[in-house]
C-alpha cells in the first residue's frame, strides 16, 4: 500500500519541488537585484539569458547524448525574431518573446529531425556548419536583416507602476530573470519526468530503449526541440537586454563557448547550467583583471577567456568529466561518508 | 626448462575470478591441449599469456623470461604467436597482405611467402583477394600461416576448429601436430572439441571454472572415461 502511495506522491512532488525552487530563486534574485548597481544588473541579465540557453543545451547533450555546436545560431534566430517584431512591427515584449520561442522551435524541429540520423562527429560537423552558415544569411538579406550592423531595438520601458526612477538595467534584469525562471521550472520538471527518463534511456542504449517501446527518433527530436525553444528564448532575451541583434554576436565562438559552459558546469545538470552561465558572464571580467595586474597586452587579454575555455574543455574531458556540479556532488558524498562510514553495502 | 611456463596464474574480471591459480608448462616440439566447457577460462588464459589482458597474479615465462605485463607487440617480438578465437583475419587487407603483415617485424628473417603457399595451396589461389572473401577454413589457414611468417617458437591457438566442417577441422589439427614437430614449436591449443584435440596432443590440461582439474598425458586423459564424461562431453 505504501509503495502505491509513494508512487502517487512522486509526480506531484516534482512539480511542487520545481515551484518551490522557482519561488526561492525568484525571491533571491529580487533581493539581490535591489542591491546591485547598473553594471552588475546587466551582468545578472546576461547570466539569466545564458542560463536559459544552457539549461536546454545541457539537457540535450547530457541527458539525450546528442551534441550540438549550433545553438549559437538558434539563439540568433530568437534574437532576430524579437528584433524584427519589436523593432519593425512594434510588438509588445511578451508576445515577441513567445514568437521567438515559436520560430526557433520550428527551426529546432527541422534540425532535430535531421539530427536523429546523425551520431557523434557527424552531428557535430553538421551543427558546426549550421552555426557558421546561418549568421551569413544576414549578409545576404541586408535590407531585412540589417547586414553586418544588425538590427537595433528600443530599450524596454519599465511600467509606470514601478516608479519614474526605476533603473532600466534592473528592469532588463527582471525580464531576463523571469525568462530564466520559466526555463528553470520547465527544465527541472522535464529532467525528473518520464520524458527526461526517455532521453536518458535513448542515450544509454538505443536498441534497449526501442525494445521498451520508445521511439528513438521521436525522443531525440523532442530533446532537440526543447533545447531549441530554450535557445530561442535566450536569444530573444539577449536582443532585449542588448537592444541589438547582429551577426557578430552569434559567430562560431558563441556556440563553442556555450559548449564549454555546459561541460564545465556539469553535463546534464540544471545546476550545472547555472554554474556555466556564471562562468560565461564573470570570466571575461576576471581575465581582464588578471591581465591588468600582470600588465598583459590587449592582444593577450582579449584572447585569454577563449584560451581558458579551450583548456577547460580539454581538461574536463580528460580529468574532470563531471564538471563543477560533479565535483560538488563528489565532495558532498565524501563528506556524507565521513559522517556515516560503512553506510554503503559491501559489494558481493 | 619448458619453453612456456605458467605458474599460479590468476585472472579476475572485477569480482569474478576467471582463472584461478593455473599452472602448466609446454615443451618445445609438443602440443598441449587446454580443454573444458565454455566459460572455463580458456580464452582468458591465452589472452593473458599474449598480453592482451592483465593478470591479477602468478607468472608467465617465455624461454625463462617473465612476460607478464610486457606489451602485446613486444611479446610477439619475442617469438610468441597468438592465433585468436575467430581467426582475427583483417578483412580489409588481401590474403597476401595479411600474410606479409605477420612477418614484417622479422624483416629479412621472416619465412618466405612461398613456404606458406606450399603449406596452404588454397591461399595461393586467393592471394590478391580481400580476406573477407575467404571461407572459414581458408581463414584459419591464413591466420595460422600469418602467425608462422614470423618464425615463432610458441604458438597459441584459440579454438581453431570453431565453425569448420569436420573434415577441414581434422585437416587443420593434423597440420598443427606436424608443424609442432617439424618446427620445434611449443603449441598451446585451446579447444572445445576435446576428442579432436586429444587425438593430436601430447599433453592435456582440463579446466573447470578456472581451475585445473586434470593435467596428464593426452592418451591417459582420453582413456579416463569418468573424466571425459564429466568435463569433456564425450
Amino acid at each position, binding site marked *: 500500500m505504501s509503495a502505491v502511495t509513494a508512487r502517487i506522491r512522486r509526480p506531484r512532488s516534482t512539480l511542487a519541488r520545481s515551484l518551490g525552487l522557482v519561488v526561492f530563486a525568484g525571491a533571491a534574485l529580487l533581493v539581490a537585484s535591489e542591491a546591485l548597481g547598473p553594471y552588475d544588473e546587466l551582468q545578472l541579465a546576461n547570466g539569466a539569458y545564458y542560463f536559459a540557453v544552457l539549461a536546454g543545451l545541457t539537457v540535450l547533450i547530457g541527458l539525450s547524448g546528442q*551534441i550540438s555546436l549550433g545553438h549559437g545560431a538558434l539563439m540568433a534566430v530568437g534574437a532576430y525574431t524579437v528584433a524584427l517584431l519589436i523593432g519593425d512591427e512594434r510588438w509588445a515584449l511578451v508576445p515577441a518573446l513567445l514568437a521567438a520561442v515559436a520560430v526557433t522551435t520550428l527551426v529546432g524541429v527541422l534540425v532535430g529531425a535531421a539530427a536523429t540520423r546523425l551520431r557523434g562527429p557527424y552531428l557535430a560537423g553538421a551543427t558546426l556548419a549550421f552555426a557558421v552558415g546561418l549568421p*551569413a544569411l544576414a549578409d545576404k538579406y541586408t535590407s531585412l536583416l540589417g547586414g553586418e550592423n544588425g538590427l537595433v531595438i528600443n530599450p524596454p520601458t519599465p511600467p509606470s507602476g514601478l516608479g519614474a526612477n526605476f533603473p532600466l538595467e534592473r528592469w532588463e534584469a527582471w525580464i531576463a530573470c523571469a525568462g530564466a525562471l520559466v526555463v528553470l521550472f520547465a527544465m527541472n520538471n522535464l529532467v525528473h519526468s518520464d520524458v527526461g527518463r526517455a532521453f536518458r534511456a535513448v542515450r544509454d542504449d538505443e536498441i534497449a530503449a526501442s525494445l521498451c517501446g520508445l521511439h528513438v527518433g521521436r525522443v531525440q527530436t523532442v530533446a532537440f526541440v526543447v533545447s531549441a525553444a530554450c535557445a530561442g528564448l535566450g536569444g530573444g532575451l539577449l536582443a532585449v537586454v542588448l537592444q541589438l541583434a547582429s551577426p557578430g554576436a552569434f559567430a562560431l565562438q558563441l556556440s563553442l563557448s556555450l559548449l564549454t559552459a555546459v561541460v564545465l558546469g556539469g553535463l546534464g545538470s540544471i545546476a550545472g547550467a547555472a554554474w556555466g552561465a556564471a562562468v560565461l558572464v564573470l570570466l571575461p571580467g576576471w581575465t581582464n583583471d588578471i591581465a591588468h595586474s600582470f600588465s598583459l597586452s590587449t592582444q593577450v587579454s582579449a584572447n585569454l577567456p577563449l584560451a581558458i575555455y579551450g583548456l577547460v*574543455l580539454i581538461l574536463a*574531458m580528460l580529468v574532470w568529466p563531471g564538471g563543477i556540479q560533479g565535483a560538488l556532488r563528489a565532495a558532498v558524498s565524501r563528506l556524507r561518508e565521513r559522517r556515516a562510514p560503512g553506510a554503503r553495502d559491501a559489494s558481493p | 626448462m619448458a619453453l612456456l611456463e605458467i605458474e599460479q596464474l590468476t585472472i579476475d574480471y572485477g569480482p569474478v575470478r576467471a582463472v584461478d591459480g593455473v599452472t602448466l608448462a609446454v615443451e618445445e616440439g609438443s602440443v598441449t591441449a587446454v580443454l573444458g566447457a565454455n566459460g572455463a577460462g580458456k580464452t582468458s588464459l591465452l589472452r593473458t599469456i599474449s598480453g592482451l589482458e592483465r593478470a591479477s597474479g602468478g607468472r608467465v615465462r617465455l624461454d625463462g623470461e617473465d612476460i607478464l605485463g610486457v606489451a*602485446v*607487440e613486444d611479446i610477439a617480438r619475442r617469438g610468441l604467436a597468438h592465433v585468436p578465437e575467430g581467426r*582475427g583475419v583483417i578483412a580489409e587487407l588481401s590474403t597476401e597482405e595479411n600474410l606479409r603483415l605477420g612477418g614484417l617485424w622479422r624483416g629479412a628473417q621472416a619465412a618466405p611467402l612461398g613456404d606458406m603457399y606450399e603449406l596452404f595451396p588454397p591461399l595461393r589461389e586467393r592471394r590478391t583477394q580481400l580476406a*573477407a572473401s575467404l571461407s572459414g577454413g581458408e581463414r584459419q589457414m591464413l591466420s595460422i600461416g600469418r602467425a608462422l611468417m614470423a618464425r615463432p617458437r610458441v604458438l597459441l591457438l584459440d579454438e581453431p576448429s570453431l565453425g569448420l566442417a569436420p573434415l577441414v577441422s581434422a585437416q587443420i589439427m593434423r597440420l598443427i601436430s606436424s608443424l609442432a614437430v617439424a618446427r620445434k614449436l611449443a603449441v598451446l591449443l585451446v579447444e572445445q572439441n576435446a576428442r579432436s584435440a586429444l587425438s593430436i596432443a601430447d599433453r592435456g590440461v582440463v579446466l573447470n571454472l578456472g581451475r585445473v582439474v586434470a593435467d596428464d598425458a593426452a592418451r591417459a586423459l582420453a582413456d579416463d572415461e569418468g573424466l571425459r564424461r564429466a568435463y569433456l562431453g564425450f
Partner: protein
Amino acid sequence: MTRFIDLTLNGISTGAIYALVALALVLTWRATRIVNFAQGGMLMITTFIASSTIASSGSYWLGFAVALVCGLALGALVERGLMRRVEGGPALNAVIVALGLLILLQALAGMIWGNTPRSFPPAFSIRGYEVGATHVLFAPNDTFTVLVVVAVAAGLAALFRGTALGLKMRAAAFGPEVARMLGVRVGRMFTLGWALAALVGSLAGVLVAPEVFVGPNQFDPILIFGFTAAVLGGLDSPVGAVVGGVVLGLALSYVSGYEGPSLVTLAALAILIAVLMIRPRGLFSSAQERRV
C-alpha cells in the same frame, strides 16, 4: 558561357584545397576513428608560423618547408600528447577534446600574432592564364595547387599500398588488436597517421592562405568544407576525399557565382545533410567494416 567556365575552373582549384583538408580528416579517421575538428586550428598555426618565417627570412619556400615540418611535429604531438587519451573511448569525448583544442589554438594564435587577418603570398602568380583576349579564372598558382593534390594523393597511395610501413599503418587502422599481436607497434602507427594528416593539412593552409588571409578564425570555413567533402566521399576513403573535394568545390563555386557568396556555407550544409540522409557512408566508402 565564359562565366560557367570560370566558375568551373575556380571550383576545381578551390576543390583541390577542400580535397587536401578532407584527406587530412580521412587520415586521422582511418588511423584512430577520430574526426579531428582541431585540424582547422592546426593548419592555421602552421600557416602563421610560415607567415612569420617568410616575413623574417624573405623566402617563400623556406616558409613553405617550415610549415610542413611544423605540421608533422604538431600532428605527432597532438596525437601522442592529447588524443591518445581519448582514442577508443566514447566518440563524444574525442569530439569535445578536439573542439577544446581548436578553441585553444585559435586563442593562442590571437595572443601571439593578433586577431587582425594578415596577407600571405601565393607560391606562383595569381594572374589568370591568357586565353585569346581574356584571362580565365585559373592561374599558375592554381595549377600548382592541383599538382600538389595529385602528388599528395599519389604519394599516399604509394605509401599505403606499396610499402611495409603503409601496410602496418593500414593494419593498425583496421585491426589494431590483431596488428599488435603480430608485433606492429600500433601506437607509433597512430602517431604517424596524425603526423601525416597534419602535414597534408598544413599544405592546405599555405595554399589557401593567400585567398582567405591568415587569422585565428579565417580558416573556419575551410574546416567545414573539408569535413563536408570528407563525408561526401566517405570518411574511410582517401580517393573519396579527393573526389568529394572537387565535387564540393564545383558545387560551391556555382552557388557562389549564381546566388552569391554568403550562401556558400549554407549550401555546404545542405549538401552535408543530403549526403548524411541519403548515403551516410559517402560515395566511395567500402561496405566492409566487419573484422573476422
